[in-house]
Protein backbone atom coordinates (compact mmCIF):
# COMPACT_ATOMS: atom_id res chain seq x y z
CA UNK A 1 0.00 0.00 0.00
CA UNK A 2 1.51 3.28 -1.14
CA UNK A 3 0.40 5.70 1.57
CA UNK A 4 2.08 8.63 -0.11
CA UNK A 5 -0.07 8.13 -3.19
CA UNK A 6 -3.13 7.50 -1.03
CA UNK A 7 -2.87 10.74 0.94
CA UNK A 8 -2.02 12.69 -2.18
CA UNK A 9 -5.20 11.37 -3.76
CA UNK A 10 -7.31 12.17 -0.70
CA UNK A 11 -5.83 15.68 -0.62
CA UNK A 12 -6.60 16.18 -4.30
CA UNK A 13 -10.15 14.84 -4.03
CA UNK A 14 -10.92 16.91 -0.91
CA UNK A 15 -9.61 20.10 -2.44
CA UNK A 16 -11.46 19.50 -5.71
CA UNK A 17 -14.79 18.65 -4.08
CA UNK A 18 -14.61 21.68 -1.76
CA UNK A 19 -13.78 24.03 -4.63
CA UNK A 20 -16.55 22.46 -6.70
CA UNK A 21 -18.98 23.06 -3.85
CA UNK A 22 -18.04 26.75 -3.93
CA UNK A 23 -18.06 27.31 -7.69
CA UNK A 24 -20.63 24.62 -8.49
CA UNK A 25 -23.44 26.17 -6.39
CA UNK A 26 -23.63 29.45 -8.35
CA UNK A 27 -23.28 27.64 -11.68
CA UNK A 28 -25.99 25.17 -10.70
CA UNK A 29 -28.29 27.91 -9.42
CA UNK A 30 -27.88 29.78 -12.67
CA UNK A 31 -28.69 26.62 -14.63
CA UNK A 32 -31.71 25.90 -12.44
CA UNK A 33 -33.17 29.40 -12.61
CA UNK A 34 -32.03 31.03 -15.86
CA UNK A 35 -34.45 31.40 -18.75
CA UNK A 36 -31.76 32.32 -21.24
CA UNK A 37 -32.56 30.63 -24.53
CA UNK A 38 -29.00 29.39 -25.09
CA UNK A 39 -28.75 27.88 -21.63
CA UNK A 40 -28.75 24.38 -23.07
CA UNK A 41 -25.34 25.06 -24.61
CA UNK A 42 -23.91 25.78 -21.17
CA UNK A 43 -25.55 22.65 -19.81
CA UNK A 44 -24.03 20.60 -22.63
CA UNK A 45 -20.59 22.08 -21.98
CA UNK A 46 -20.84 21.29 -18.27
CA UNK A 47 -21.81 17.71 -19.07
CA UNK A 48 -18.98 17.17 -21.58
CA UNK A 49 -16.54 15.53 -19.13
CA UNK A 50 -19.04 12.71 -18.62
CA UNK A 51 -18.70 11.53 -22.21
CA UNK A 52 -15.27 12.76 -23.27
CA UNK A 53 -12.39 10.29 -23.06
CA UNK A 54 -10.19 11.51 -20.19
CA UNK A 55 -7.29 11.64 -22.65
CA UNK A 56 -9.12 14.24 -24.75
CA UNK A 57 -9.93 16.37 -21.74
CA UNK A 58 -6.44 15.86 -20.38
CA UNK A 59 -4.87 16.78 -23.70
CA UNK A 60 -6.65 20.12 -23.90
CA UNK A 61 -6.00 20.90 -20.26
CA UNK A 62 -2.33 20.15 -20.84
CA UNK A 63 -2.28 22.48 -23.83
CA UNK A 64 -4.09 25.17 -21.87
CA UNK A 65 -1.68 24.89 -18.97
CA UNK A 66 1.44 24.80 -21.12
CA UNK A 67 3.71 27.78 -21.70
CA UNK A 68 2.22 28.38 -25.15
CA UNK A 69 -1.23 29.32 -23.82
CA UNK A 70 -2.08 32.69 -22.21
CA UNK A 71 -3.12 30.96 -18.98
CA UNK A 72 0.10 28.98 -18.84
CA UNK A 73 2.22 32.06 -19.55
CA UNK A 74 0.36 34.08 -16.92
CA UNK A 75 0.91 31.38 -14.31
CA UNK A 76 4.56 31.06 -15.31
CA UNK A 77 5.15 34.81 -14.97
CA UNK A 78 3.51 34.63 -11.56
CA UNK A 79 5.23 31.57 -10.12
CA UNK A 80 8.20 30.87 -12.34
CA UNK A 81 7.10 27.41 -13.42
CA UNK A 82 4.37 25.95 -15.64
CA UNK A 83 1.20 24.32 -14.34
CA UNK A 84 1.73 21.15 -16.28
CA UNK A 85 3.01 18.21 -14.24
CA UNK A 86 2.28 19.96 -10.90
CA UNK A 87 -0.26 19.31 -8.18
CA UNK A 88 -1.98 22.63 -9.00
CA UNK A 89 -2.33 21.55 -12.62
CA UNK A 90 -3.83 18.31 -11.42
CA UNK A 91 -6.37 20.25 -9.36
CA UNK A 92 -7.41 22.31 -12.41
CA UNK A 93 -7.75 19.21 -14.58
CA UNK A 94 -9.75 17.41 -11.88
CA UNK A 95 -12.05 20.39 -11.37
CA UNK A 96 -13.08 20.24 -15.01
CA UNK A 97 -13.21 16.46 -14.98
CA UNK A 98 -15.54 16.30 -11.95
CA UNK A 99 -17.55 19.47 -12.64
CA UNK A 100 -20.73 17.74 -13.90
CA UNK A 101 -20.72 15.34 -10.96
CA UNK A 102 -21.15 18.32 -8.65
CA UNK A 103 -23.18 20.71 -10.79
CA UNK A 104 -25.81 18.28 -12.02
CA UNK A 105 -27.00 17.07 -8.61
CA UNK A 106 -26.90 20.65 -7.31
CA UNK A 107 -28.95 21.95 -10.23
CA UNK A 108 -31.44 19.08 -9.95
CA UNK A 109 -31.92 19.84 -6.24
CA UNK A 110 -32.32 23.58 -6.78
CA UNK A 111 -34.73 22.98 -9.63
CA UNK A 112 -36.84 20.71 -7.42
CA UNK A 113 -37.49 23.46 -4.86
CA UNK A 114 -41.11 24.54 -5.25
CA UNK A 115 -41.08 28.03 -6.83
CA UNK A 116 -44.12 28.93 -4.75
CA UNK A 117 -41.90 28.80 -1.68
CA UNK A 118 -39.65 31.41 -3.27
CA UNK A 119 -42.66 33.62 -3.93
CA UNK A 120 -43.86 33.18 -0.37
CA UNK A 121 -40.42 34.07 0.93
CA UNK A 122 -40.30 37.26 -1.15
CA UNK A 123 -43.72 38.31 0.07
CA UNK A 124 -42.47 37.80 3.63
CA UNK A 125 -39.82 40.43 2.99
CA UNK A 126 -36.83 38.22 2.31
CA UNK A 127 -34.35 39.21 -0.40
CA UNK A 128 -33.33 36.70 -3.07
CA UNK A 129 -30.05 36.03 -1.25
CA UNK A 130 -31.81 35.41 2.06
CA UNK A 131 -34.35 33.22 0.30
CA UNK A 132 -31.55 31.19 -1.25
CA UNK A 133 -29.86 30.73 2.11
CA UNK A 134 -33.00 30.07 4.16
CA UNK A 135 -35.14 28.06 1.74
CA UNK A 136 -33.25 26.81 -1.30
CA UNK A 137 -30.11 25.54 0.46
CA UNK A 138 -31.90 23.75 3.34
CA UNK A 139 -34.27 22.06 0.91
CA UNK A 140 -31.36 21.00 -1.31
CA UNK A 141 -29.11 19.35 1.28
CA UNK A 142 -29.52 15.88 -0.23
CA UNK A 143 -28.45 17.20 -3.63
CA UNK A 144 -25.53 19.10 -2.12
CA UNK A 145 -24.30 16.04 -0.26
CA UNK A 146 -24.74 13.96 -3.41
CA UNK A 147 -22.80 16.40 -5.59
CA UNK A 148 -20.05 16.81 -3.02
CA UNK A 149 -19.66 13.08 -2.47
CA UNK A 150 -19.84 12.16 -6.15
CA UNK A 151 -17.23 14.73 -7.13
CA UNK A 152 -14.99 13.46 -4.32
CA UNK A 153 -15.42 9.83 -5.38
CA UNK A 154 -15.00 10.64 -9.03
CA UNK A 155 -11.77 12.55 -8.45
CA UNK A 156 -10.52 9.73 -6.26
CA UNK A 157 -10.71 7.30 -9.14
CA UNK A 158 -9.55 9.43 -12.05
CA UNK A 159 -6.75 8.09 -14.19
CA UNK A 160 -6.55 9.43 -17.72
CA UNK A 161 -6.59 13.13 -16.93
CA UNK A 162 -4.05 12.68 -14.16
CA UNK A 163 -1.72 10.82 -16.45
CA UNK A 164 -2.02 13.44 -19.20
CA UNK A 165 -1.78 16.52 -17.02
CA UNK A 166 0.23 15.39 -14.05
CA UNK A 167 2.42 12.65 -15.32
CA UNK A 168 3.62 10.28 -12.66
CA UNK A 169 5.74 12.16 -10.14
CA UNK A 170 5.82 10.47 -6.71
CA UNK A 171 4.46 12.73 -3.98
CA UNK A 172 3.35 15.36 -6.48
CA UNK A 173 1.08 13.82 -9.08
CA UNK A 174 1.19 10.08 -8.53
CA UNK A 175 -2.33 9.23 -7.38
CA UNK A 176 -3.67 5.87 -6.24
CA UNK A 177 -5.04 4.83 -9.61
CA UNK A 178 -1.70 5.51 -11.27
CA UNK A 179 0.09 3.69 -8.50
CA UNK A 180 -2.08 0.64 -9.13
CA UNK A 181 -1.30 0.82 -12.83
CA UNK A 182 2.43 1.02 -12.11
CA UNK A 183 2.31 -1.99 -9.86
CA UNK A 184 0.44 -4.08 -12.36
CA UNK A 185 3.05 -3.12 -14.96
CA UNK A 186 5.71 -4.33 -12.54
CA UNK A 187 3.72 -7.53 -11.89
CA UNK A 188 3.28 -6.63 -8.18
CA UNK A 189 -0.23 -8.05 -8.12
CA UNK A 190 -0.56 -8.48 -4.36
CA UNK A 191 0.28 -4.88 -3.68
CA UNK A 192 -1.89 -3.67 -6.57
CA UNK A 193 -4.76 -5.69 -5.18
CA UNK A 194 -4.34 -4.14 -1.73
CA UNK A 195 -4.58 -0.60 -3.06
CA UNK A 196 -7.34 -1.47 -5.50
CA UNK A 197 -9.37 -3.03 -2.69
CA UNK A 198 -9.03 0.10 -0.56
CA UNK A 199 -10.25 2.22 -3.47
CA UNK A 200 -13.12 -0.18 -4.10
CA UNK A 201 -14.28 -0.10 -0.47
CA UNK A 202 -14.02 3.69 -0.21
CA UNK A 203 -15.93 4.17 -3.45
CA UNK A 204 -18.65 1.81 -2.30
CA UNK A 205 -19.00 3.60 1.04
CA UNK A 206 -19.22 6.98 -0.71
CA UNK A 207 -21.89 5.76 -3.12
CA UNK A 208 -23.77 4.17 -0.24
CA UNK A 209 -23.78 7.60 1.41
CA UNK A 210 -25.16 9.17 -1.78
CA UNK A 211 -27.96 6.66 -2.10
CA UNK A 212 -28.66 6.68 1.63
CA UNK A 213 -29.05 10.45 1.66
CA UNK A 214 -31.39 10.42 -1.29
CA UNK A 215 -33.47 7.60 0.11
CA UNK A 216 -34.22 9.63 3.22
CA UNK A 217 -34.97 12.78 1.26
CA UNK A 218 -37.64 10.95 -0.67
CA UNK A 219 -39.49 9.86 2.43
CA UNK A 220 -41.30 12.61 4.21
CA UNK A 221 -43.35 11.40 7.07
CA UNK A 222 -44.33 12.00 10.67
CA UNK A 223 -41.15 10.35 11.95
CA UNK A 224 -38.99 13.23 10.75
Amino acid at each position, binding site marked *: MNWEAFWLTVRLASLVSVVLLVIGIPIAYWIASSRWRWKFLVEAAVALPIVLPPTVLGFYVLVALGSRSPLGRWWESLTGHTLAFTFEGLVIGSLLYSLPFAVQPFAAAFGAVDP*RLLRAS*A*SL*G*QSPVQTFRRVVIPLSTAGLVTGFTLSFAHTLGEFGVVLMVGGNIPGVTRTVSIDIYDRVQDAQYASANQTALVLLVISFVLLAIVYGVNRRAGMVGPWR
Partner: protein
Amino acid sequence: MEVRTAPALAVPQTSSELEVRIRKRFPHPEGTFHLHVHFRALAGFTILFGASGAGKTTVLDCIAGLTDPDQGRIALGGEQLYDSDGKRNVPAWKRHIGYVLQDLALFPHLTAEENVAYGLRQFGAAERRARSREMLEAFRIDRLRERRPAQISGGERQRVALARTLVTEPRALLLDEPLAALDRPTRSSIVEDLRRWNQRYRIPILFVTHSVEEVFALGEEVIVLEAGKIVAQGQPRDVIDAPRLETVAQLAGFENIFDATVLAGHEDRGTMTCRIGTASLDLETPMIRAEAGSQVRIGIRAGDIMLATESPRGLSARNILPGAIQKLESRAGMISAFVNCSGAEFEVHLTLAAREALSLSSGKNVWVVIKTHSCHLLRQ
Protein backbone atom coordinates in the same frame (compact mmCIF):
# COMPACT_ATOMS: atom_id res chain seq x y z
CA MET B 1 -66.85 81.10 -13.59
CA GLU B 2 -65.49 79.81 -10.38
CA VAL B 3 -62.02 78.40 -10.48
CA ARG B 4 -61.80 75.06 -8.74
CA THR B 5 -58.76 74.96 -6.59
CA ALA B 6 -57.24 71.60 -5.93
CA PRO B 7 -60.39 69.70 -5.09
CA ALA B 8 -58.29 66.65 -4.44
CA LEU B 9 -57.19 68.19 -1.16
CA ALA B 10 -60.74 68.20 0.09
CA VAL B 11 -60.62 64.42 0.36
CA PRO B 12 -57.57 63.55 2.42
CA GLN B 13 -56.03 60.32 1.27
CA THR B 14 -56.15 57.74 3.99
CA SER B 15 -52.72 56.43 4.78
CA SER B 16 -53.63 52.88 3.90
CA GLU B 17 -55.42 53.23 0.60
CA LEU B 18 -54.40 50.81 -2.11
CA GLU B 19 -54.73 52.10 -5.63
CA VAL B 20 -54.36 49.77 -8.58
CA ARG B 21 -54.47 50.76 -12.21
CA ILE B 22 -52.85 48.12 -14.37
CA ARG B 23 -52.83 46.65 -17.83
CA LYS B 24 -51.26 43.37 -18.67
CA ARG B 25 -51.55 41.04 -21.60
CA PHE B 26 -50.27 37.52 -21.79
CA PRO B 27 -50.72 34.50 -24.03
CA HIS B 28 -53.58 32.23 -23.13
CA PRO B 29 -54.91 28.99 -24.66
CA GLU B 30 -57.85 30.95 -26.11
CA GLY B 31 -55.99 33.91 -27.58
CA THR B 32 -54.28 36.76 -25.78
CA PHE B 33 -55.60 37.57 -22.34
CA HIS B 34 -56.03 41.26 -21.58
CA LEU B 35 -56.12 42.35 -17.98
CA HIS B 36 -57.18 45.93 -17.48
CA VAL B 37 -58.35 46.97 -14.04
CA HIS B 38 -58.56 50.15 -12.04
CA PHE B 39 -59.78 50.22 -8.47
CA ARG B 40 -59.11 51.55 -5.01
CA ALA B 41 -59.28 49.47 -1.87
CA LEU B 42 -59.65 51.14 1.51
CA ALA B 43 -58.88 49.62 4.87
CA GLY B 44 -61.12 46.63 5.40
CA PHE B 45 -62.17 43.73 3.24
CA THR B 46 -62.51 44.09 -0.50
CA ILE B 47 -63.56 40.96 -2.31
CA LEU B 48 -62.26 40.13 -5.76
CA PHE B 49 -64.94 37.89 -7.15
CA GLY B 50 -64.98 36.05 -10.43
CA ALA B 51 -64.72 32.75 -12.25
CA SER B 52 -61.39 31.00 -12.52
CA GLY B 53 -59.38 32.53 -15.32
CA ALA B 54 -60.89 35.99 -14.79
CA GLY B 55 -57.51 37.37 -13.77
CA LYS B 56 -57.95 37.56 -10.00
CA THR B 57 -54.65 35.90 -9.11
CA THR B 58 -52.76 37.96 -11.70
CA VAL B 59 -54.06 41.15 -10.08
CA LEU B 60 -52.78 39.97 -6.71
CA ASP B 61 -49.43 38.91 -8.21
CA CYS B 62 -48.98 42.37 -9.70
CA ILE B 63 -49.79 44.09 -6.40
CA ALA B 64 -47.42 41.80 -4.51
CA GLY B 65 -44.69 42.45 -7.08
CA LEU B 66 -44.39 38.82 -8.11
CA THR B 67 -45.44 39.67 -11.67
CA ASP B 68 -44.92 42.93 -13.53
CA PRO B 69 -47.83 44.60 -15.28
CA ASP B 70 -47.16 45.92 -18.78
CA GLN B 71 -48.33 49.34 -17.83
CA GLY B 72 -49.94 51.29 -15.04
CA ARG B 73 -49.46 52.26 -11.47
CA ILE B 74 -49.80 50.65 -8.07
CA ALA B 75 -49.69 52.78 -4.95
CA LEU B 76 -50.16 51.96 -1.30
CA GLY B 77 -50.73 54.66 1.26
CA GLY B 78 -49.49 57.24 -1.21
CA GLU B 79 -46.25 55.40 -1.91
CA GLN B 80 -45.63 54.35 -5.49
CA LEU B 81 -44.87 50.65 -5.67
CA TYR B 82 -45.06 50.41 -9.42
CA ASP B 83 -45.25 53.13 -12.01
CA SER B 84 -44.59 52.41 -15.65
CA ASP B 85 -44.24 56.13 -16.42
CA GLY B 86 -41.90 56.89 -13.57
CA LYS B 87 -40.04 53.65 -14.23
CA ARG B 88 -40.55 52.65 -10.65
CA ASN B 89 -40.86 49.03 -9.56
CA VAL B 90 -40.29 48.21 -5.91
CA PRO B 91 -39.20 44.55 -5.61
CA ALA B 92 -41.65 42.20 -3.94
CA TRP B 93 -39.56 41.75 -0.83
CA LYS B 94 -39.49 45.47 -0.12
CA ARG B 95 -43.22 46.09 -0.53
CA HIS B 96 -44.41 44.95 2.93
CA ILE B 97 -47.49 43.43 1.40
CA GLY B 98 -48.66 40.17 2.91
CA TYR B 99 -49.71 37.54 0.41
CA VAL B 100 -51.29 34.24 1.38
CA LEU B 101 -51.08 32.08 -1.68
CA GLN B 102 -53.81 29.71 -2.69
CA ASP B 103 -51.67 26.68 -1.99
CA LEU B 104 -50.20 28.23 1.18
CA ALA B 105 -46.57 27.39 0.37
CA LEU B 106 -45.54 26.68 3.94
CA PHE B 107 -41.84 25.92 4.26
CA PRO B 108 -41.72 22.13 4.61
CA HIS B 109 -38.36 22.10 6.41
CA LEU B 110 -39.52 24.42 9.18
CA THR B 111 -41.87 23.83 12.11
CA ALA B 112 -45.08 25.79 12.45
CA GLU B 113 -43.39 28.21 14.82
CA GLU B 114 -40.35 28.62 12.55
CA ASN B 115 -42.68 29.24 9.63
CA VAL B 116 -44.46 31.98 11.56
CA ALA B 117 -41.14 33.52 12.65
CA TYR B 118 -39.71 33.36 9.13
CA GLY B 119 -40.49 36.95 8.17
CA LEU B 120 -39.25 38.41 11.47
CA ARG B 121 -35.55 38.25 10.69
CA GLN B 122 -35.04 41.89 11.57
CA PHE B 123 -35.82 41.19 15.24
CA GLY B 124 -33.67 39.51 17.85
CA ALA B 125 -34.37 35.92 18.82
CA ALA B 126 -36.37 36.83 21.94
CA GLU B 127 -38.56 39.34 20.14
CA ARG B 128 -39.05 36.91 17.26
CA ARG B 129 -40.17 34.22 19.62
CA ALA B 130 -42.50 36.52 21.56
CA ARG B 131 -44.19 37.81 18.41
CA SER B 132 -44.61 34.44 16.77
CA ARG B 133 -45.92 32.86 19.98
CA GLU B 134 -48.45 35.64 20.35
CA MET B 135 -49.64 35.14 16.78
CA LEU B 136 -49.79 31.34 17.19
CA GLU B 137 -52.02 31.86 20.21
CA ALA B 138 -54.21 34.40 18.44
CA PHE B 139 -54.81 31.82 15.71
CA ARG B 140 -55.21 29.01 18.25
CA ILE B 141 -52.38 26.90 16.88
CA ASP B 142 -49.80 27.25 19.66
CA ARG B 143 -50.07 23.55 20.44
CA LEU B 144 -48.68 22.82 16.94
CA ARG B 145 -45.53 24.87 17.42
CA GLU B 146 -43.12 21.98 16.97
CA ARG B 147 -44.92 20.28 14.09
CA ARG B 148 -43.98 20.51 10.45
CA PRO B 149 -46.51 21.36 7.73
CA ALA B 150 -46.74 17.72 6.64
CA GLN B 151 -47.93 16.77 10.12
CA ILE B 152 -50.88 19.11 10.51
CA SER B 153 -54.36 19.31 9.00
CA GLY B 154 -55.53 21.56 6.18
CA GLY B 155 -57.31 24.04 8.43
CA GLU B 156 -54.31 24.25 10.73
CA ARG B 157 -51.98 24.80 7.79
CA GLN B 158 -54.27 27.62 6.72
CA ARG B 159 -53.95 29.22 10.12
CA VAL B 160 -50.17 28.85 10.07
CA ALA B 161 -50.05 30.50 6.63
CA LEU B 162 -52.21 33.39 7.79
CA ALA B 163 -50.25 33.79 11.03
CA ARG B 164 -46.95 33.71 9.12
CA THR B 165 -48.11 36.60 6.95
CA LEU B 166 -49.93 38.68 9.57
CA VAL B 167 -47.09 38.53 12.09
CA THR B 168 -45.00 40.66 9.72
CA GLU B 169 -47.59 43.46 10.12
CA PRO B 170 -48.04 44.02 6.39
CA ARG B 171 -49.34 47.32 5.02
CA ALA B 172 -51.85 45.46 2.88
CA LEU B 173 -53.00 41.87 2.77
CA LEU B 174 -53.71 39.73 -0.29
CA LEU B 175 -55.59 36.49 0.22
CA ASP B 176 -55.98 34.16 -2.74
CA GLU B 177 -58.88 31.82 -1.98
CA PRO B 178 -57.36 31.00 1.36
CA LEU B 179 -60.40 29.14 2.60
CA ALA B 180 -61.41 27.26 -0.53
CA ALA B 181 -60.24 23.86 0.62
CA LEU B 182 -61.77 24.00 4.08
CA ASP B 183 -65.01 22.75 5.55
CA ARG B 184 -67.60 25.28 6.58
CA PRO B 185 -67.10 25.47 10.37
CA THR B 186 -63.32 25.83 9.97
CA ARG B 187 -63.89 28.45 7.33
CA SER B 188 -66.15 30.62 9.40
CA SER B 189 -63.94 30.37 12.45
CA ILE B 190 -60.92 31.50 10.44
CA VAL B 191 -62.99 34.33 8.98
CA GLU B 192 -63.81 35.40 12.54
CA ASP B 193 -60.12 35.36 13.49
CA LEU B 194 -59.32 37.47 10.45
CA ARG B 195 -62.04 39.95 11.27
CA ARG B 196 -60.80 40.33 14.81
CA TRP B 197 -57.29 40.88 13.57
CA ASN B 198 -58.41 43.48 11.08
CA GLN B 199 -60.35 45.47 13.65
CA ARG B 200 -57.01 46.18 15.23
CA TYR B 201 -54.83 46.82 12.19
CA ARG B 202 -57.23 48.35 9.67
CA ILE B 203 -55.33 47.71 6.43
CA PRO B 204 -56.69 47.03 2.95
CA ILE B 205 -57.40 43.33 2.57
CA LEU B 206 -58.00 42.01 -0.91
CA PHE B 207 -59.72 38.69 -0.72
CA VAL B 208 -60.08 36.53 -3.82
CA THR B 209 -62.92 34.07 -3.83
CA HIS B 210 -65.60 32.50 -5.94
CA SER B 211 -67.73 31.60 -2.97
CA VAL B 212 -70.81 33.74 -2.47
CA GLU B 213 -70.91 32.81 1.15
CA GLU B 214 -67.51 34.39 1.70
CA VAL B 215 -68.59 37.49 -0.17
CA PHE B 216 -71.40 38.04 2.30
CA ALA B 217 -69.42 36.94 5.33
CA LEU B 218 -66.55 39.33 4.70
CA GLY B 219 -67.48 41.85 2.14
CA GLU B 220 -67.74 45.51 2.72
CA GLU B 221 -66.98 45.98 -0.96
CA VAL B 222 -66.98 43.52 -3.81
CA ILE B 223 -65.30 43.84 -7.20
CA VAL B 224 -66.47 41.46 -9.91
CA LEU B 225 -63.87 40.50 -12.50
CA GLU B 226 -64.76 38.96 -15.81
CA ALA B 227 -62.16 38.12 -18.45
CA GLY B 228 -59.69 40.63 -17.07
CA LYS B 229 -62.13 43.53 -16.66
CA ILE B 230 -64.09 44.88 -13.72
CA VAL B 231 -67.75 44.42 -14.56
CA ALA B 232 -69.34 45.41 -11.27
CA GLN B 233 -68.31 46.96 -8.01
CA GLY B 234 -70.18 47.86 -4.85
CA GLN B 235 -71.83 46.45 -1.77
CA PRO B 236 -72.37 42.68 -1.86
CA ARG B 237 -76.16 43.12 -1.62
CA ASP B 238 -76.25 45.40 -4.65
CA VAL B 239 -73.86 43.41 -6.80
CA ILE B 240 -74.64 39.82 -5.97
CA ASP B 241 -78.38 40.04 -5.43
CA ALA B 242 -78.97 41.50 -8.84
CA PRO B 243 -77.34 38.90 -11.02
CA ARG B 244 -77.73 40.69 -14.32
CA LEU B 245 -74.22 39.74 -15.18
CA GLU B 246 -73.57 36.27 -16.27
CA THR B 247 -70.48 35.75 -14.14
CA VAL B 248 -72.28 36.96 -11.09
CA ALA B 249 -75.28 34.86 -11.89
CA GLN B 250 -73.24 31.79 -12.59
CA LEU B 251 -71.26 32.03 -9.45
CA ALA B 252 -73.43 33.95 -7.12
CA GLY B 253 -76.73 33.27 -5.60
CA PHE B 254 -77.09 29.79 -6.92
CA GLU B 255 -76.04 27.22 -4.42
CA ASN B 256 -77.59 24.64 -6.72
CA ILE B 257 -76.34 24.46 -10.27
CA PHE B 258 -77.28 21.52 -12.48
CA ASP B 259 -76.44 20.59 -16.02
CA ALA B 260 -79.60 19.44 -17.75
CA THR B 261 -81.04 18.42 -21.10
CA VAL B 262 -84.16 20.00 -22.55
CA LEU B 263 -86.80 17.26 -22.97
CA ALA B 264 -89.70 19.22 -24.34
CA GLY B 265 -91.01 22.75 -24.57
CA HIS B 266 -94.59 23.73 -23.77
CA GLU B 267 -95.09 26.90 -25.75
CA ASP B 268 -98.67 27.33 -24.58
CA ARG B 269 -97.64 27.35 -20.93
CA GLY B 270 -94.35 29.19 -21.42
CA THR B 271 -92.44 26.42 -19.71
CA MET B 272 -90.30 23.50 -20.60
CA THR B 273 -89.20 20.25 -19.04
CA CYS B 274 -85.52 19.60 -18.39
CA ARG B 275 -83.87 16.42 -17.21
CA ILE B 276 -81.02 16.82 -14.76
CA GLY B 277 -77.86 15.23 -16.09
CA THR B 278 -76.96 12.35 -13.86
CA ALA B 279 -80.26 11.84 -12.10
CA SER B 280 -83.47 10.79 -13.77
CA LEU B 281 -85.16 13.86 -12.43
CA ASP B 282 -87.29 16.28 -14.43
CA LEU B 283 -87.72 19.93 -13.60
CA GLU B 284 -90.19 22.37 -15.05
CA THR B 285 -88.42 25.60 -15.93
CA PRO B 286 -89.31 28.81 -17.72
CA MET B 287 -89.23 28.62 -21.50
CA ILE B 288 -86.16 29.71 -23.36
CA ARG B 289 -85.31 29.42 -27.02
CA ALA B 290 -83.78 25.96 -26.95
CA GLU B 291 -84.35 22.84 -28.98
CA ALA B 292 -85.28 19.58 -27.36
CA GLY B 293 -82.08 17.71 -26.59
CA SER B 294 -79.96 20.82 -26.10
CA GLN B 295 -77.87 21.29 -22.98
CA VAL B 296 -78.74 23.94 -20.43
CA ARG B 297 -77.57 24.86 -16.96
CA ILE B 298 -80.08 25.50 -14.23
CA GLY B 299 -79.37 27.57 -11.14
CA ILE B 300 -81.60 27.47 -8.07
CA ARG B 301 -81.05 29.49 -4.91
CA ALA B 302 -81.01 27.48 -1.73
CA GLY B 303 -83.30 30.08 -0.19
CA ASP B 304 -85.90 29.63 -2.95
CA ILE B 305 -86.55 25.98 -2.18
CA MET B 306 -89.16 24.80 0.30
CA LEU B 307 -89.25 21.54 2.18
CA ALA B 308 -92.38 19.62 3.12
CA THR B 309 -92.62 16.59 5.37
CA GLU B 310 -95.75 15.32 3.63
CA SER B 311 -96.55 15.24 -0.04
CA PRO B 312 -98.01 18.71 -0.55
CA ARG B 313 -101.21 19.24 -2.48
CA GLY B 314 -102.91 22.31 -3.82
CA LEU B 315 -99.69 24.19 -4.44
CA SER B 316 -98.92 26.40 -7.38
CA ALA B 317 -95.29 25.23 -7.42
CA ARG B 318 -94.76 22.87 -10.32
CA ASN B 319 -91.74 20.97 -9.05
CA ILE B 320 -92.46 18.71 -6.10
CA LEU B 321 -89.75 16.11 -5.74
CA PRO B 322 -89.51 13.36 -3.12
CA GLY B 323 -86.14 12.92 -1.45
CA ALA B 324 -84.28 12.25 1.76
CA ILE B 325 -82.22 14.57 3.93
CA GLN B 326 -78.56 13.65 3.71
CA LYS B 327 -77.29 16.03 6.35
CA LEU B 328 -78.09 19.24 8.17
CA GLU B 329 -75.51 21.91 8.84
CA SER B 330 -76.17 24.86 11.06
CA ARG B 331 -74.37 28.13 10.76
CA ALA B 332 -74.93 31.74 11.67
CA GLY B 333 -78.60 31.48 12.57
CA MET B 334 -79.70 29.28 9.74
CA ILE B 335 -79.74 25.69 8.56
CA SER B 336 -78.44 24.21 5.34
CA ALA B 337 -80.21 20.97 4.49
CA PHE B 338 -78.77 18.74 1.80
CA VAL B 339 -81.50 16.68 0.20
CA ASN B 340 -80.99 13.82 -2.18
CA CYS B 341 -83.72 13.47 -4.82
CA SER B 342 -83.10 10.51 -7.11
CA GLY B 343 -79.37 11.18 -7.16
CA ALA B 344 -79.47 14.97 -7.46
CA GLU B 345 -78.44 16.84 -4.32
CA PHE B 346 -80.21 20.07 -3.44
CA GLU B 347 -78.99 22.55 -0.87
CA VAL B 348 -81.93 24.14 0.94
CA HIS B 349 -81.75 27.01 3.41
CA LEU B 350 -84.11 26.94 6.36
CA THR B 351 -84.56 28.84 9.57
CA LEU B 352 -83.86 27.21 12.89
CA ALA B 353 -87.54 27.47 13.68
CA ALA B 354 -88.49 25.59 10.52
CA ARG B 355 -86.18 22.76 11.43
CA GLU B 356 -87.80 22.43 14.84
CA ALA B 357 -91.35 22.77 13.61
CA LEU B 358 -90.80 20.01 11.06
CA SER B 359 -88.44 18.07 13.36
CA LEU B 360 -86.01 17.59 10.50
CA SER B 361 -83.09 15.26 10.92
CA SER B 362 -80.83 13.47 8.52
CA GLY B 363 -82.38 10.42 6.92
CA LYS B 364 -85.88 11.91 7.05
CA ASN B 365 -87.99 11.71 3.91
CA VAL B 366 -89.09 15.08 2.61
CA TRP B 367 -90.50 16.74 -0.49
CA VAL B 368 -88.50 19.45 -2.23
CA VAL B 369 -90.73 22.21 -3.61
CA ILE B 370 -89.43 24.55 -6.30
CA LYS B 371 -91.41 27.12 -8.27
CA THR B 372 -90.90 27.08 -12.02
CA HIS B 373 -89.56 30.61 -11.96
CA SER B 374 -87.06 29.79 -9.26
CA CYS B 375 -85.29 27.65 -11.85
CA HIS B 376 -82.95 30.08 -13.58
CA LEU B 377 -81.56 29.06 -16.91
CA LEU B 378 -77.93 30.07 -17.20
CA ARG B 379 -76.10 30.34 -20.44
CA GLN B 380 -73.20 27.91 -20.67
